[in-house]
Structure formats: C-alpha cells, structure tokens
C-alpha cells in the first residue's frame, strides 16, 4: 500500500450507554480499491459506516478522507465532501414521495442545480446503466420489486459520479441470483467510475465478489485484513469460524438462556 489512503481511520470509538461498539478502531482504505468489512450482527459494521458518512458522531478518533479529518469539519464543509460520496443503503432508502427518476436525479438537482427538464433524461440514462428501462422512470418506488428498488438506489448512488462509494449490506433481502446481479452491477459501476468502494456485509459470497480486500470487525476492532481471494485460508480462527458459519469457535454470540 502506497500514498495517502482514500479513507484513514484512527482510534475510532463509539459507545451506546455501557455498550462499546467501536473500540479504538484503525482502518485504511486505499484509493481505487474495494474494501469489504465483514462481521457478525451487532459487531459495529453499520455504526462504522455511519460514522464515516457523518450520520453518527463518534466519541473519539479521527476519520480522514483524502487526508482531511472530516470530523473536524463544519456542516457546510462536510456537505461539500459528501458531494463526492455515493451511498447504497441496506433497504434502498428511496424517497417514496418522489417518482423513480426524481430519486435518481435527487443529488443532481440538489447539488448541481441541474434544470428539472435536463435531469429527467439524465436519470433515464443512469437507469439504463443499471439495467432499467425508461418505463420505470415515472413509477413510485413502492411499485418496484426489491431487486429493482436496489437498482434504482444504485443508480441514485452513482448519479453524481462519486469518488467513494459505500454499500451497506447490498444483497440483503435479495435471492441469490438477484444478489449476484446486484454485485456484478456494483463491480461494473465502481470500475467504470474508478471509485473507491467501502462495503459492509455478512454475505461471504458477496464479499468475495465485490471486494479486493476484506477486513473483519470483532469486539469493536479490525482483527484481520487480507485479500478477498484468500479469506478461506486466512489462518485466523475468528475469520475461519465466520466463513464456515459455525457456532463452534472463538466468537461467542450473546444469547439469553
């Protein structure tokens, strides 16, 4: 790894009451690469991604994007950084009060003040890039299937040609075939944009499809980082147990008996 990482996280901590979710977490995401964070439910993956996006304020630590600590920025400066970021939420998070095309063009209209008459044709072009036709442009998000909603959410995320893309459990709620299709679209679009991709998932097949590098989070820290291709031979007992999906191993799930 050389040069300044696209995202550099140091000593990131976050607790909710007595529960410490992130505990002095360190992580680097190299520019132009895809990093996937894996970990069990409640391990802090979503909190980590929300801290980076500025949706949750961490208790301690620094998050640098392109060498600038985003935690020390004003809201306006932060909004300027977000212009270069695209995010695909777990459930899509499409605005159900707007038609599909306005969802896709939302960032273009809000950030770049593109005229509405120009935004609709542009939105239809972007929908085509994720395999959707112009016939869905005027539909409401609730009229679409789960897979189509995910594609529209991906279209919205790539619309402003971001430098960094975040994916929160991109295949959750989809059947294996649609999951593979969405993963392929993600890889294609990230490559086309030359973007840095930061994903979180507990779907191992998805992690290997969309990531160059995999990092495992456990106990609020990153406990292993390695190439996605070698994750099944990591030699780390935590990663091995997670990859096998076994209840036997060092990871003890918190269960009430």
């Amino acid at each position, binding site marked *: 790894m050389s040069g300044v990482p696209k995202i550099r996280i140091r000593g990131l901590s976050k607790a909710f009451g007595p529960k410490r979710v992130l505990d002095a977490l360190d992580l680097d995401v190299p520019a132009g690469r895809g990093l996937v964070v894996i970990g069990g439910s409640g391990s802090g993956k979503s909190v980590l991604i929300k801290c980076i996006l500025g949706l949750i304020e961490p208790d301690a630590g620094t998050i640098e994007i392109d060498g600038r600590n985003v935690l020390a920025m004003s809201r306006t400066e932060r909004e*300027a950084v977000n212009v270069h970021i*695209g*995010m695909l*939420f777990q*459930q899509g*998070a*499409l*605005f*159900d009060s707007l038609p599909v095309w306005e969802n896709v063009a939302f960032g273009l209209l809000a950030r770049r003040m593109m005229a509405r008459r120009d935004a609709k044709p542009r939105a239809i072009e972007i929908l085509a890039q994720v395999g959707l036709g112009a016939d869905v442009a005027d539909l409401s998000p609730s009229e679409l299937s789960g897979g189509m909603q995910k594609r529209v959410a991906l279209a919205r995320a790539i619309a402003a040609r971001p430098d960094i893309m975040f994916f929160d459990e991109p295949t959750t709620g989809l059947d294996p075939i649609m999951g593979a299709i969405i993963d392929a679209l993600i890889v294609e679009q990230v490559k086309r944009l030359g973007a840095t991709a930061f994903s979180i998932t507990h779907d191992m097949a998805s992690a290997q499809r969309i990531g160059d590098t995999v990092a495992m989070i456990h106990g609020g820290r990153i406990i292993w980082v390695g190439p996605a291709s070698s994750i099944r031979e990591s030699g780390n007992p935590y990663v091995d147990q997670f990859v096998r999906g076994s209840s036997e191993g060092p990871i003890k799930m918190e269960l009430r008996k």
Partner: protein
Amino acid sequence: MNTLLDLLGAIGRGLFAVLSAAGSVTLFAALALSHVVRPPFYPRLLLRQMTDIGYFSLPVVALTAIFSGMVLALQSYTGFARFSAEGAVATVVVLSITRELGPVLAGLMVAGRVGAAIAAELGTMRVTDQIDALTTLSTNPMKYLVVPRIVAATLVLPLLVLVADILGVLGGFIVGVFKLDFHPGTYMARTWEYLEFQDVFSGLVKAAVFGFIIALMGCYQGYHSKGGAQGVGAATTNAVVSASILILTFNYIITELFFAR
C-alpha cells in the same frame, strides 16, 4: 421513609423528563427557525406543503366551523332565553367564533389531520433511512423536510381560521334565521355591532402560533422517531397529543396577552 423517597424520586424523574423534552423541543425549534432565513430554499416544497396542509384541510375545518356556529346559536338562545337576552345570540356567536372557537377548533382538527401525517411521514423516513439518505446526498434534512412544513403551517392556518370564522358565523346565521326566527337583517346587524378588529386579529395570531406548534411537534416527533412501526405509531400519537395540549396552553396565554385588563 423509603416510600416517601421513592415517591419523591419518581416525581423528580418525571419532572426531569418533562424539562428535558421541553429543552429538546426548544432547541429543535430554534434550529428550524435558523434555517428559515438561510439558503437553499425549496419553494416547490413550500407550495406543496401549503396545499397539503391548507387546501386539503378545508373540508374538515369548514364542517367543524359551520356546525360549531350552529350549535353555539342554538345553545346560547336556549340559555339566554332564561333571562330574556335572546337578542345577544348573534354577538355571542361571532365573538366566540372569532376569538376562541375558530382558531382552537381549527387548530385541534388540523393537529389531528396534519400533525399526525407529518409525524408518520417523517417517522417512516427516519426508520427507513430516508433522512440519512438526504444527508448523504448533501441535503440538509432540516431545510428540506422541517422548514417547508413549519413555514407552510404557520402561513396557512390563519387563512383556514378566516374561512372558519366566516362559516361559523354563517352556521349561527342559518340556525338564527331559519330555526329561531331572527330577522336576517337584524341578525347581521347584531353580528357586526360589537365586533372589533382585535377580535378577528387575535384569532388569526392564535392560528399562526397554532400552525407553528402543529408542524413543530409533528416534525420533532417524526424526526426523532425510532424503533420501527411501533416507534412511528408512538411518534404520531405524541405529535397529536402534545400539539393539542400546547394549543390549549398557548390559547390561554395569547388570550391573556390580548384581552386581560
């Protein structure tokens, strides 16, 4: 002794919770107001909210006002007949409607219709990550969601109350003329005789304050909603209940400011 301490502890916790909520709502209101005057502005959203809150509330407010005017005329007539003061019916109707019933009943009806809808919409947006999505799209949710609703409600409630005033007086007129056999000209003359500008103006000021309260409580409860469908349901209930209580509280305060001698 322990029972007394437990009781005091429970009272203290309750008081602390109320003060904490009041502080939180006040900060939310101050933040929203600070965004009212700072760009970017969303005129399309403001117009849409004015239509949703104002135009679509017209039937509910109109029906409430007209029947309130009718029942007020009937009740005051049967009451005043006991001491031969039936002639005051028109005056009582117009003063009651413009000063109190118009703004309060319109406020409560709009709180039920619009306050609940705002809380449910923003609450659903919160639990489905739509509000977070706005942030990631460089759009301030306070400016995009909260400000248009608060400004729209504050502007359109006085217009709704003006309609309620007219229809409430009309309701009283209908009952007075067609049921109680008042002469139409005499009824209208009595309606105007004691009506002052301040009577109508105080009602419109109340309406603007009530509109602000309704949208504020709907936005606050929805914005801070959590816990899925149950949380959205609780936010909706809290929005209507808190707005209704605040409407009645501020109704007294504004009345005191306008009419206390």
